[in-house]
């Protein structure tokens, strides 16, 4: 193997330290025995026990998981339909604009998404009385909206790399469009749907900005609880909580990437022989 230059080594190391030093520090300090966040007092798991005895945090965590689960599931359904429509509708007037609109939430500043959704909910409540007040329901709607964009993009990419004659072959063999979707299209885009779900789950789980806009009293998600706690000063408990969240998010992202890789390899193998 070629020896890499010292400069390349240096920049790679510096980059990794820059990215991960804060996270490593946080993880290490979550095992700190001392009550003072900045003073090292030896290893301990006591902040984790304390964390699990903190009802407010456990409740918020449970709420976040529920919201993430429901919005990821809704986003997958809507996003798949949007992606399917975009890739199979054929060329139509305004297709570019429509696909631009679907993907806009990906690049829209979260503050704007959050604010506009808040305004919408308030206006809707005034006009048809629904949603009455803000809470879990509005957070779910908000998260579904932006997660759906991610799913649509992933599903569309998968569909456009898929041989369209597969669907024609199914029709030719007697499958009606409805059964064709469930027998052929859906199994083939399943990996994309799974990675879309995992991605949506983690995105929803760690969203703070949008949730702060559209949640109501007594409906604080986990990131909101952490944020409000940190404002009163960082406690080692928060470090422990953050470590657990990093773990969950990392597992989700790695699983999503693994799914995408696997499907890419499968397609490659199919093209090669």
């Amino acid at each position, binding site marked *: 193997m070629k020896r890499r230059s010292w400069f390349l080594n240096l920049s790679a190391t510096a980059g990794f330290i820059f990215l991960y030093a804060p996270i490593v520090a946080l993880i290490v300090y979550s095992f700190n025995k001392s009550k003072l966040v900045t003073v090292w007092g030896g290893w301990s798991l006591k902040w984790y026990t304390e964390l699990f005895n903190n009802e407010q945090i456990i409740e918020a965590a449970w709420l976040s998981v529920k919201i993430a689960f429901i919005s990821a599931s809704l986003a997958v359904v809507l996003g798949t339909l949007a992606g399917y429509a975009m890739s199979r509708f054929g060329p139509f007037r305004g297709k570019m604009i429509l696909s631009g609109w679907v993907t806009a939430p990906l690049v829209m500043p979260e503050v704007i998404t959050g604010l506009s959704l808040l305004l919408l909910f308030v206006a809707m409540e005034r006009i048809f009385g629904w949603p009455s007040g803000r809470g879990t329901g509005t957070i779910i709607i908000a998260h579904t909206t932006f997660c759906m964009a991610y799913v649509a993009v992933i599903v569309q990419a998968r569909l456009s790399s898929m*041989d369209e*004659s*597969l669907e*024609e*072959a*199914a*029709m*030719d*063999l*007697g*499958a*009606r469009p409805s*059964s064709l979707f469930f*027998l*052929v299209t859906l*199994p*083939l885009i399943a990996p994309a749907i799974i990675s879309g779900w995992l991605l949506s789950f983690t995105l929803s789980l760690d969203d703070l900005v949008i949730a702060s806009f559209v949640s109501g009293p007594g409906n604080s998600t986990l990131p909101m609880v952490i944020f409000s706690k940190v404002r009163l000063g960082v406690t080692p408990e928060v470090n422990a909580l953050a470590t657990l969240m990093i773990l969950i998010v990392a597992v989700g992202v790695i699983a999503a990437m693994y799914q995408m890789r696997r499907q890419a390899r*499968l397609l490659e*193998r*199919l093209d090669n*022989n």
Partner: protein
Amino acid sequence: MTSSQNIETSLSSNTATDSVPAWKQEGAEPFLRIENLTKKFGEFTAVDNISLDIYKNELFCLLGGSGSGKSTLLRMLAGFETPTSGRIIIDGTDMSGIQPWKRPVNMMFQSYALFPHLSVADNVAFGLKREGVGRAEVKQRVAQMLDMVQLGHLGKRKPHQLSGGQRQRVALARSLIKRPKLLLLDEPLGALDKKLREETQFELVNIQEELGVTFVVVTHDQEEAMTLATRIGVMNHGVIVQTDEPHDVYEYPNSRFVARFIGSVNLFAGFVVQDEPDAVHIESAEAGTTIVKHHGISCAPGQEVSVAVRPEKISISYERPTDADNILEGEIEDIAYMGSLSVFRVRLNSGKEVRVTQPNFDRHVGDRFTWNDKVFLSWKSDSTVVLTS
């Protein structure tokens, strides 16, 4: 009747001794009738007012270059494209408005389009399951079909674990399992290497004769069309230029396009100087002589025509032949030794280049002629084809 007898009769039917093929019989009922079929994509006319009759048990080849409209025509038969105008009638039933999943037609796709998430056996079973055939019968018919294409042992594999030739046979099995009245094949051998193609061509003909299915094959490969087809329809710019048996398409092309598209050909531009009842004389500056064609065709003196002569119909010699009807003089410019035959490029005095192929019937034929030799090229009158369009 066993299948081997079937093959024999079909081979001998080329010489038309025992039975007259349906397309030569007066008033024979076509199995597939295409009436004034047109397909436009916006301003572009892909298929232009085609009418065509295809008979039962035919293996009909649509031959054409890319963009000739052959695939669009096939896709209209399958129901994936809706005709702009015209009708398709299969076995007496008008197909207008009938969805692809309800047509008595199956298709073998160029990419094979095997479902990657299903095993070979499930791929083949797909069509039967949609019909609601019972589980035991599905199993039995799939096994039978896989045995026919010699893949009985691979039923549990996934498509990506198969070679190209095996996938091609799975695709064929899958398209035949519903016993369609009409099977459409889109470039069926396109993705196979040359040796495999040749084997598969004959296999395909055997299967077609065994099952008695009518095949419509789309291909751009003239060799494939020649080996497979009972008849060939040559397509160009959305129109069928000529429909004939392979032998006739090759020996009696009806236009310059067909002559050039099928095999290679030497074309000489000229005009009719003398039109006798039993012979036409055509003066060609390109050929540097007057070309004779006996058993005349209808044309008027002065009419501009093209004379087509196939490279293998021309003989090459040092001495002026005495028994030939048409003789040209030239100089050998290039020789390509191809093993079974040699190809000569001969420059005539007019500057026109003529292609001549000679079989290497003994080992030293190729050595006899060499570059820059002055030679005579000759052919018989009945090898001359006079083209007016």
